[in-house]
């Protein structure tokens, strides 16, 4: 198996608080990874470090791009995205004034293939590229079942569909590795089941590596091949779902220790 992402000694301090400290992690191509931990364990901070929203205080993040390892820690988010890493947000961040279709089109930005002059002069390059973008965006929307709603404003979608639109949008950035921050938050059990199937389907169809943060244990145990557990900013366990379920550190982190 090829190693895709390698994190060594990653830490982030906010003043005196170590939100994430000394995390080591290796993720292989094609894996489905779960990242769990109690509230405030540093999961989202860890995501933000990987996607460039925060700059790491210490440590390395290496992404394999075209067979070569590249340090991405501290790069700007748009650069990291262009290297093949895309994400969704825990608190949904769709573009509110845009339609569903435009939200997805925006994410295909780096592959638009024309510059501002083609846009202003409306060259044939512009028309061809826009047609391709539209087709491709519709394809991504069909994948998540939102094709029929493509001309609605993103804010008018119900909550579960907004979550799926976030996934379609991240997909449109054509990543090799996709980060999902609580994709099932606020979904009912049926929607969660559909989401599980969707994530598995997308991984297979687009050859993705997927890392997800989730509190819904049935989804994580069902879907993920490997799980990492964070607590107080530290990695306390990693392994297959069975291993994690029986790990005493994990149980005590979630349920508390016997007195």
């Amino acid at each position: 198996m090829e190693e895709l992402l390698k994190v060594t000694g990653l830490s982030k301090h906010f003043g005196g608080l170590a939100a994430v400290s000394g995390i080591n992690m290796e993720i292989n191509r094609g894996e489905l990874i779960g990242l769990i931990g109690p509230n405030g364990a540093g999961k989202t901070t860890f995501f933000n470090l990987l996607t460039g929203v925060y700059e790491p205080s210490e440590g390395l993040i290496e992404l394999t791009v075209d067979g070569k390892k590249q340090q991405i820690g501290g790069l700007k988010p748009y650069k990291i995205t262009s290297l093949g890493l895309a994400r969704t947000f825990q608190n949904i961040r769709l573009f509110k004034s845009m339609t569903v279709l435009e939200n997805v089109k925006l994410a295909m930005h780096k592959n638009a293939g024309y510059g501002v002059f083609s846009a202003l002069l409306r060259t044939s390059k512009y028309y061809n590229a826009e047609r391709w973008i539209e087709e491709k965006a519709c394809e991504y929307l069909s994948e998540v079942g939102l094709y029929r709603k493509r001309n609605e404003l993103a804010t008018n979608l119900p909550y579960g569909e907004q979550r799926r639109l976030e996934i379609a949008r991240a997909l449109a950035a054509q990543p090799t590795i996709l980060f999902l921050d609580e994709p099932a938050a606020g979904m009912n059990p049926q929607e969660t089941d559909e989401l599980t199937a969707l994530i598995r389907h997308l991984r297979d169809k687009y050859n993705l590596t997927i890392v997800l943060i989730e509190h819904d244990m049935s989804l994580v145990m069902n879907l993920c091949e490997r799980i990492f557990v964070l607590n107080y900013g530290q990695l306390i366990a990693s392994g297959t779902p069975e291993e994690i379920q029986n790990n005493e550190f994990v149980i005590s982190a979630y349920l508390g220790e016997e007195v």
Partner: protein
Amino acid sequence: MAKQVLSKANMIWSGLILALFLIVWVLMGAGIINSYYESTIFTICFNIILAVSLNLIVGICGQFSLGHAGFMAIGAYSAGIVTKMIPNLGGLLLGILIGFAISAIAALIVSIPTLRLRGDYLAIATLGFAEIIRICIQNMKITNGAAGLMGIPKLTTWPLLFFAVVISIVVCTNFVRSAPGRACIAINDDEIAAEAMGVNTTKYKVMAFVIGAILASLAGSLFANYFYVLNPNQFTFNKSIDILVIVVFGGMGSMSASVIAAIAIGLLNMWLQQFTDLRMIIYGAALVLMMIFRPQGILGTWELSIERFLKNRKLKKERA
């Protein structure tokens, strides 16, 4: 490509624009539009260029700029100085191009550091920039200081100005409906998400700012060659506010709204001339009422679209 350019909607737009152009031209030739009405129409045209270009920065990209008068001043003085030396259309073209170059460079210099600022901080920074331009003009020899330039040849004609207005609107709408334009709208909606989706936010903010500045400079150049005289006091903070009022009055983010608002405010101003003393009070009251009862502007974010009109009509026909 030819098919898309020669689409039905584009042909109808071209027809309407050509008709409007010819009607006004014939009426001017026949003397039905006298010089008083003519100057109102020309002022409206300058304001349309200024408003659509400011809308690109403020409404589309969400960068609150109060420096538009500065860029207009650059264009006005460039064209004014050059056409005083070369009083023909070639001189005007050269003046316009020099204005483009200077305003683009000024916009780059201002925007790269200041576009890190947000909201009111950016407004103050751009306001400061426009004042610097004005003070420079006031103290330079070539611009004839506070006395200003006089006897600038009148080279701005109706066909030339109308052409400039159409080009400005086309540039702005084409920009908005493209990948770079979508990037700007995304920045306005949610900067963090835009960056996470691969948008280089600084680059696109600067791009919108520079395009807006160049168009403002174009308006300035044509303005200078219509009113004969230029002085630094025409380009104060008040001028920037006037343009911003048009953008907000029409609706942030809608180009057709800026055009309609520029016409509406132009006509309102003309009509209010008769009230002399009460003019500013009525104008102010109109703005206050507007903001209370329709804070999103006349059109909000709605755009005039012949394409949509044709589509709706087709749908209705199919249903019938």
